[in-house]
């Protein structure tokens, strides 16, 4: 390394001037200045669109469609929220999405954790084959099976029902859930389980009383990720759902049309109010479970 260090020395000199600046209190702020500007810029970039949504949702329709643009609503109003919530297909959609995403989450966790129990705690022939099969299923794109799903769903008479969505979303949430939960199960020490078996517990009891509580953090993370992906899905919802009372949230948000039929074809105020209503619970959920999500995502990414 010494040769590299010699080659470097002349370039290294400006650093020392920065160091001298750092000793001084004001100098320290000066050196850190560009850094904080950068941080602020990143925060503004992430958050400004949300501000704009909130601003537009409280701005009366008349003021939305006039120039110059008001950056802060002069006459804030709740009319847009009333409008959005009085649209039947939107309130239905909130309920539908809750049903679909809720069942997908529960089913993936139930099936996923029992599959993970089998794959993670028992040795049997073809175990790694099954694991890689599961992993490869997480990679192929949703669009690749649209045709097959479409015909399957119509033959099962599920077309235009919420069941169609639950069925097709499970195809995507299950492999991920199984994969992550299996890797959780594998990290658990075997002693606990053995102790339980020695005490006369059945495999089912071991699963319920010993293993499930231990993988609870994994359950929360994968459950949340399954919930979010089911809540946000659009392609299948668009393809398999037809009647407005079966819409999910993403379908509903693109279906607002002006009831006045005036020049402003799109009621942006209501759409923005609906956006606030949809995103608020997600944001709260994400902020509360922030650490868990990041851990789960990176676990999935690194091991996947």
């Amino acid at each position, binding site marked *: 390394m010494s040769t590299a260090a010699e080659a470097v020395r002349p370039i290294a000199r400006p650093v020392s001037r920065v160091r001298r600046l750092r000793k001084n209190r004001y100098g320290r702020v000066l050196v850190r200045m560009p850094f904080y500007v950068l941080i602020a810029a990143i925060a503004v970039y992430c958050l400004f669109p949300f501000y704009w949504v909130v601003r537009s949702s409280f701005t009366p329709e008349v003021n939305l469609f006039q120039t110059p643009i008001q950056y802060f609503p002069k006459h804030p109003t709740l009319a847009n929220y009333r409008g959005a919530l009085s649209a039947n297909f939107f309130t239905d959609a909130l309920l539908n999405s809750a049903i679909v995403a809720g069942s997908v989450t529960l089913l993936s966790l139930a099936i996923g954790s029992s599959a993970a129990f089998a794959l993670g705690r028992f040795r049997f022939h073809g175990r790694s084959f099954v694991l890689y099969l599961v992993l490869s299923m997480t990679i192929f794109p949703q*669009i690749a099976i649209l045709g*097959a799903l479409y*015909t399957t769903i119509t033959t099962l008479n599920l077309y235009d029902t919420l069941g169609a969505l639950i069925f097709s979303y499970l195809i995507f949430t299950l492999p991920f859930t199984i994969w992550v939960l299996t890797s959780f199960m594998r990290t658990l020490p075997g002693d606990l389980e053995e102790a339980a078996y020695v005490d006369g517990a059945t495999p089912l009891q071991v699963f319920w009383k010993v293993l499930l509580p231990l993988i609870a953090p994994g359950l929360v993370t994968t459950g949340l990720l399954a919930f979010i992906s089911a809540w946000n899905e659009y392609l299948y919802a668009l393809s398999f759902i037809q009647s407005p009372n079966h819409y999910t949230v993403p379908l509903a948000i693109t279906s607002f049309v002006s009831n006045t039929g005036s020049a402003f074809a799109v009621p*942006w105020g209501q759409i923005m109010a609906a956006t606030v209503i949809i995103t608020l619970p997600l944001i709260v959920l994400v902020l509360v479970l922030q650490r868990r999500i990041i851990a789960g995502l*990176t676990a999935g990414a690194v091991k996947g």
Partner: protein
Amino acid sequence: MYPLGKTIYQSFTDQEFLSLTPTKWVGLQNYRELWHDTLFRNSIWETIKFTLITVAFEFVLGLVIALVVNSSFKGRGAMRAIMLVPWAIPTVVAAQMWKWMLDDTFGVINDLMMKIHLISHPHAWIASPGTALGAVAAVDIWKTTPFVALLLLAGLQVIPQDLYEAARVDGANVLQQFWKITLPLLKPAILVTLIFRTLDALRVFDVFYVFFGNRPDTETMAIYDQSTIVGDGHVGYGAAVSVVIFLIIAIFVVIYVTASRVTGENT
């Protein structure tokens, strides 16, 4: 796995949705037609352009953000939470937000850009063919860059700090530290992130659909496929499209993996 097998089988048939004539085995017929299908060829090209633009921007911006957030400062936890928010909201909702911001007469983007004299008159970003792709790319970049940054940040945090200590003692400047320590050690995280993002971008559907519907000059592979199957009911032909999309995505994965092997041997 079953649906995937069924798709491949369907791609060799002339199956039509709700058709009265029984489905026949047609061999490679669908693929031959697909080869001459200019609409599909355009959609491939459109998707690849979108992928290159978004992945490049998201990676570079994401890396910068990850490096900035990786240094310790007050409010770092809050910053990470802020970065997670765009990722969590539905893509369709993000697309709607931006569609409104990009509105040609009442959109805030035109207004802001005119205020700082970047443009002299309002643009119809979404309607005009020249900027349409840039407009959708902007949505995707906004929504996913923070997520890319979070993945890279996780990679940065496992790099041991004493390596940087040692480099400083040896007199390496910040840039050298970046090229010789950060980048090589970050490579696994970078590779995973790039693969994930590329796969996602190649199957893009939501943003394009919300912005343009079925506008022919801005169809992606996924939109073309969806409208073939669901809109027109050509299940067999659509299945062939699905298989080709699947193969294109597989090619990208192979390119990434081999590229990483080659550079891995050099270092």
